[in-house]
């Protein structure tokens, strides 16, 4: 049984159901529900690498001057008796099949009470582990009961929460009090934490591929949130701590604040920062000033950002003193004519001093990114996108073109094709290569409640490496998706088209 569905979780879930049964009168005939099933399947094939070694005495001088095997693979010896190198690995073929189910139930006889559950079932067809993120086979993303009144909200069960400190999850309870007239809100939460970036406890075997410092017990989570939403501004603050129940030592202790100001129509000033009490260091911070002209004819933004990674204290990585980088960026989007929209953005960043001597290795400590793009909608049925992006920086660089065309001859039918070319020289490796992508998708929505998508993509790589290890990373992907909505309610029609067009606004719904 996966850890996410372990005995302790089952006990809590049964307790939750019993509690709901106690508070909800038997008027289930009035129930409303909304069930969304989203199934995706992919067929992928690609080739990795395989570590190999050769006695140092059997190496020869390679094309770059360094040691190489007699058949041309550059090797790393580092004074050892054996030198190591990577050969092309076997071709891996996988078929991830994943179904997500989102269920909301309301009308339980108590006004304001609703149940929410989000689960996932994943199955790998083909080579085991050929595609990440599929384990365990059953995952419970969220499952909670929500009771809301105008002045307070209580939530009990597995839930996730967006905050300054990221998107975190826990099994527990959350209470939020608010004053609708003033916009003030105060909340507290507590429970057993989930790992970062996934709906699994840190004890899950699925999160331990390298078998190192994995906790044996889930961390206890407690936090406090305060916010004030007004016409001209929104402000919020959070304090969050996680404790190892085995030792009562901190796993994480952080605080953060966010502010959004709307000084005038179309203008928005946002900013935020967080502080790591455990390490005594400021974490990430950012500030931005944006303007959008009425009617959407133009939008611009300038921003500054500081990013420092956060590591929980059950790893040793925080003690290795990761340094932050600081970035300034700007973006501009204009629509010179109604059917054409042009976008440009650029960023420049520089890492703080690492204070690590590099007598033999020179690596850059700064970088930049830029992007130019255009979207042309010659008619209601056609949308054409074209873009160029480039990034240069420490570790890796890329540059390439992207083009996409979407044709929707009917409201329920759309065909999209995309093509891209990419140069990606990587620092620290002989790995300069060119990747070309060609893909197509067909979307069909036979009814308001059913949407089907099928597509294919082909990645073809030309690896420009001076030795014979220029193995390709060619890849073919086929995918299919079906989304089925069941239940009652006007929202079964899906989000309004305007919302679907918003960045990250659920365009796949």
């Amino acid at each position, binding site marked *: 049984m996966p850890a996410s569905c372990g005995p302790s979780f089952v006990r809590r879930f049964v307790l939750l159901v019993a509690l709901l049964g106690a508070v909800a009168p038997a008027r289930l005939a009035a129930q409303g529900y909304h069930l969304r099933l989203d199934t995706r399947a*992919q067929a992928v094939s690609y080739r*990795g690498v395989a*570590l190999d070694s050769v006695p140092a005495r059997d190496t020869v001088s390679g094309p770059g001057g360094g040691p190489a095997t007699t058949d041309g693979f550059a090797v790393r010896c*580092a004074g050892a008796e054996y030198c190591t190198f*990577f050969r092309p690995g076997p071709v891996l073929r996988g078929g*991830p099949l994943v179904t997500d189910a*989102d269920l909301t139930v309301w009308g339980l006889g108590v006004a304001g009470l609703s149940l*929410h559950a*989000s689960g996932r079932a*994943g199955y790998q067809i083909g080579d085991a582990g050929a595609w990440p*993120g599929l384990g365990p086979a059953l995952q419970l993303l969220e499952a909670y009961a929500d009771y809301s009144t105008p002045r307070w909200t209580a939530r009990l069960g597995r839930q996730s929460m*967006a905050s300054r400190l*990221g998107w975190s999850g826990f099994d527990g309870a959350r209470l939020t009090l608010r004053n609708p007239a003033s916009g003030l809100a105060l909340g507290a939460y507590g429970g057993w934490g989930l790992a*970062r*970036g996934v709906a699994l406890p840190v004890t899950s075997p*699925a*999160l331990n*591929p390298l078998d*190192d*410092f994995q906790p044996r017990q889930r961390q206890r989570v407690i936090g406090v949130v305060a916010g004030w*939403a007004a016409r001209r501004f929104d402000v919020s603050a959070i304090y969050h701590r996680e404790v190892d129940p085995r*030792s009562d030592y901190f*796993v994480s202790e952080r605080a*953060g604040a*966010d502010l*959004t100001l709307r000084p005038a129509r179309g*203008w*928005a000033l*946002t900013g*935020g920062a967080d502080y790591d009490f*455990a390490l005594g260091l400021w974490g990430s911070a*950012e500030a931005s000033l*944006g303007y959008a002209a*009425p009617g959407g004819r133009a939008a*611009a933004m300038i921003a500054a950002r500081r990013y420092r990674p956060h*590591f929980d*204290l059950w790893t040793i990585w925080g003690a*290795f003193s*990761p340094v932050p980088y600081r970035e300034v960026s700007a973006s*501009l*989007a204009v629509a010179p004519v109604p059917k054409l929209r042009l976008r440009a*953005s650029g960023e420049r960043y520089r890492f703080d001093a690492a204070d690590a*001597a590099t*007598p033999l*290795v020179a690596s850059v400590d700064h970088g930049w990114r830029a992007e130019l793009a255009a979207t042309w909608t010659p008619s209601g049925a056609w949308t054409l996108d074209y873009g160029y992006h480039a990034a240069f920086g*420490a*570790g890796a660089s890329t540059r390439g073109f*992207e083009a996409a065309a979407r044709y929707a001859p009917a409201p329920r039918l759309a065909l999209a094709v*995309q093509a*891209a070319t*990419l140069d990606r020289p*990587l620092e*620290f490796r002989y790995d300069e290569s060119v990747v070309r992508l060609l893909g197509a998708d067909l979307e069909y929505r036979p009814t308001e409640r059913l949407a089907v998508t099928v*597509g294919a*993509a082909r990645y073809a790589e030309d690896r420009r490496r001076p030795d014979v290890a220029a193995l390709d990373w060619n890849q073919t992907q086929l995918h299919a998706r079906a989304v089925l909505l069941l239940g009652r309610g*006007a929202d079964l029609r899906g*989000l309004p088209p*305007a919302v679907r067009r918003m960045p*990250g*606004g659920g365009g796949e719904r």
Partner: protein
Amino acid sequence: MSVARGVAPLAAALIALALARAARGQTPGAAFDHARHRRVVPTCATCHAGAAQPDASLWPDPASCAVCHDGAIRRRLAWQPPAAARRSNLRFTHARHAAAATRRAARDTTQRPSSCLDCHTDLGAPAVVRRAAVGRCLSCHGVQVRHLSAPDSACATCHLSLAEARALTREDVARFPAPDRHKEAGFLARGGHGAAAGPAAASCATCHSRDFCLGCHVDAPEQPAIQALPSDPRSLAIAVRLAAPPSHAQPSFATRHGGAVGRDAGACATCHTRESCVACHTTPPRVAAHLASGGPGRSAGAVVSRHPPPSHVGGFADRHAGQASAAAGSCAGCHARADCLACHRPQGGRGAGYHPAGFLARHPAAAYSREISCSDCHNTAGFCAACHATAGLTARRALGSGYHDATPFFIAGHGAAARRSLETCVGCHAERDCLACHSALGGRRFNPHGPGFDAERLKRRNPEVCTACHGTSIP
């Protein structure tokens, strides 16, 4: 007797009409020389029996033509009557119409009895029999304008409702001509067709049914005139497009429509559901309560298009965290929770979603410099390290395995790179790889602590971290 007296001339005219068609081309609509045959056929009903007897055919019997057209007296004819009755939505039958005309003549002695020729000839050319002209119908029924300009109340006089005209096909309905009134400015407005639909609902039903109204009206269940119409999907053959009123084109409408809504929310309720409000408004305004919620029996209504908030400029998806945490409630006005989970709990089987198509090929650059925080959505161990391990990108001991092969002696100078992107390093390396050199308990004992490291603070918070390298002898 009076009925027979009225029918006889009518039948005579009809038979003349049919014979004229037969003579010209033996097809309905072709000219038939009724005048020439008048000498051999005394009355219209002789050939057009159906004009006098409801259960008889209106078409001549070919056998009666063959009496003369036998190949000896006259050449043979290949004409055959149509197999099916003509598809029509006319309310007219010859028998009933003739009876009504006769009754009218009986009441009004100044009126002469109607004859077939009254309808089937043009004025001034009584000998040329033709299909009944609509103008003759209108003039007799007191309509003094041309057909499509007739008053809204007049359609049902001659025409069956669409639901009654079962023989008509969708194609027939699609070819219905639009009355002139429909082209008048303001016809689609509130005081236009809506005001006319009440007293003239029967006329509307000539061409339309409830399905047609549902194409635009979200308030259909609340409109008696619409509910009075029968349902008939053939009415959808007439294309209709919901057009915004002129007021909606004003530049300031988006920001100033609240006043108009407050004055008369009912005007909005024709085209807008409650979902129109929440498409833009974070908190549904009070007037939303006056609007119906979308659902079966209603049109989807006007689709509200909105401009993203000022913050949603290019790349906002990469930087939305601040605003989302400052006022999560404002996001909920437009975004469902599943939208958040789609990216923040990405599933392994998905194709391109948050990341653009082809991102997999360029993720090394984005990940190394943390263009965005990967760990907000991906667990480093469960996603990055797992995939790298499958692809063979797994360190089995300290640096030196050959992967960082572009830089000679990378191991001697990896410190700066590691501190700049430690999250990338742990995508392939486990703690043991680093402890081979950086542990105080053995190996080369290189100190990994860098600028700003507060050993005392860390020791207070969690000394177990220190024991990983220092054992129990934490300095």
